[in-house]
């Protein structure tokens, strides 16, 4: 009979991975597969366009907006640390900075697309390069948009005082998505602006 209390004590320390993290990581795995298809299509079609313009003629490496997006991963990480330690002012500042950096990235994409469409005459239907470029970069940009909407929602609730230290865990789950969006840009950047040019 002595075994029974032992058995029961064992489960007092019953810990399972958190719901939010398992769900978000699953979503990220699924999204990775989605992006992989567009990346594969891009790589497969490099140099297969039968008419111009070609990537080397029109693409510039978007250094500034890339730096902005990647730094936003750092600022959101600082914000995560801040809310964990209940430094709400610091959290608000760095969370807001993340949104600004993400917004700059999106603006950069808009300017780049405007130049490509009106100056270089490259649209999604011009050639294979246009098709694969706009769909891959556009898919990523749409994820940035979704991320920014969610970040902004949190920011508004922070300003109204609804976001508190007890939400640190939800914030970290959401930040996981933003880190994913930044990580995808590493792949898109490499494939589109380095390999494909």
């Amino acid at each position, binding site marked *: 009979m002595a075994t*029974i209390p032992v058995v029961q004590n064992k*489960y007092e320390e019953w810990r399972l991975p958190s719901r939010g993290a398992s769900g978000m990581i*699953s979503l990220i795995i699924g999204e990775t597969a989605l992006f992989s298809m567009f990346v594969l*299509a891009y790589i497969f*079609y490099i140099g297969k366009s*039968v008419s111009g313009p070609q990537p080397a003629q029109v693409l510039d490496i978007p250094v500034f907006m890339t730096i902005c997006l990647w730094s936003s991963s750092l600022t959101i990480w600082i914000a995560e640390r801040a809310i964990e330690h209940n430094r709400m002012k610091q959290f608000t500042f760095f969370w807001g900075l993340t949104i600004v950096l993400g917004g700059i990235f999106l603006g950069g994409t808009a300017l780049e697309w405007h130049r490509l469409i009106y100056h270089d005459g490259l649209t*999604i239907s011009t050639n294979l390069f246009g098709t694969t470029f706009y769909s891959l970069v556009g898919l990523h940009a749409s994820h940035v948009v979704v991320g920014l909407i969610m970040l902004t929602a949190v920011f508004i609730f922070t300003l109204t005082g609804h976001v508190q230290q007890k939400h640190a865990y939800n914030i970290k789950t959401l930040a996981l998505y933003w880190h994913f969006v930044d990580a995808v840009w590493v792949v898109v950047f490499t494939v589109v602006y380095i390999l494909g040019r």
Partner: protein
Amino acid sequence: MADQTLPIGGALDITPQKATKQSFFEWLSEWFITVDHKKLGILYISYALVFMLVAGVEALMIRVQLAVPNNDFVSPQLYDRLFTMHGTTMVFLVGMPILFGFANYIVPLQIGARDMAYPRLNAFSFWLTAFGGLLLYYSFIGGFGLYGVGTAPDMGWFAYAPLTEKAFSPGHAPDYWAIALIISGWGTLGTAINIIATTISMRCKGMTLMRMPLFSWLMLVVSGLTLVTITPLTAAQIMLMIDRYLGGHFFDTQAGGSAVMWMHFFWIFGHPEVYVLVLPAFGIASEIIPVFSRKGIFGYAAMVAASVGIGFVSLGVWAHHMFTVGMSTPTTTFFVLSTMLVGIPTGIKIFNWLATIWGGKIVFATPMLFCLAFLFQFLIAGLTGIMLSAAPWDWQLHNSYFVVAHFHYVLVGAIVFNIFAAIYYWFPKATGKMLSETLGKWHFWLFLIGFHLTFDFMHIPGILGMPRHIYTYMPDRGWGIWNFIETIGAFVQAIAVLVFLYNVVISLMKGKEAGNDPWDAWTLEWATPSPPPAYNFATDPVVNSRRPLWDLKHPEDPDWKYE
């Protein structure tokens, strides 16, 4: 020794049923706004059964058209729509919803949770799937209006490019197909995420991963597979939409695009999809066979390992659908060997089921009958699969009725049989009523005979050279008699399904009361009342072994002593 009942103490409490009167509209709105995993599970299963009837009628029309040579029972245009919609419906609106429906209902109960990890996402996913199905079927009346045959998809369920491009498919047939499946795909993705989070994070105390019931394990593997399977299809369909609406060139061969690219993308989804459908069926067999053999499952750890193994291997076999497309020899060889590799973990599973039955006290109840038929039929399906995996054999029989017979042996002979087994097994839990055993046996034997009449004989015209998707054929080919037998078999199956539906209705009205645990089973869902209350368990259960109810019923010889 009574203390050893503690592990699930309180779980067996019979809690009083809610007996409040509601009006019809209250009842209806409860089903619309529900976030309860059990109600959503029932919604999924009912939805899938409705579409199973629809796709079944389509199959019957196809069979009537092919019954005799030079037939013109339906027009060629409608015929194309029938086989496309039959395939698409059965895979996306029947197979996946019904299996995810079972997962919804059973997994939280089996792991001792009170609901799924994300109840609202769960409801959202179901309604997305449901809306996708309705949109797909709206194509029959949408587009060109109510006359004729509408603009239902007519390019085969795999929708090969460039047939789906704007130049070759004007109108909206591929659009309905792609958009409906993108929407239901999001629903499926949501459910998969939900099941993963549930099995990872919601297990009750003591339910370690290696104590999780095999059905829940298989659903975890399936959901993981779904994450990386359904999204490539969505990606390919988005590309198709970009081609059709924005003038893109992904699959436009004249602008340098590649139609073979679509084949790769489709089958990167399409082959793992088969495992998404068949692995839950394995899970069902792994629950039912032990209970009706009165023995614990043989080789639990090997079963788990084999399931995960099948999941991984299935991601690397897709191009065996494309041997005739002209791939290089090393590529072909790779896909021949990787396809044959699937036979190993699958073989392990078959031997484990057989070893579970071996020496058991077999109870030939209806669920067990369906599972036994599954074992034999799945073996044959696997053997024709190994034949087709050999590239030279496939070059000969690609896109013939031999292939159609092979995959129907998997989809009907294995999956549908286990779906019926699961319905007979869990219906008492969900409704509190037993399905009639007499009608169940009629259903089983009629369906078995019909199945074998149709699909055994389908192999023969395939070997004689009958291609799939053909509208009709000449009398001098020697295919007529075989097709006629297949059509008779199809109608026998239809009668069996009608017997089943009658059984469901009559049992719901005046079936025998089931009680909590009619099969004397061992997993946690049988510890709850039938039907379970909204909160499932009055107190959170604690388990000490893989068979918590065995421990409870046999305190003198509990399982945890041997684990």
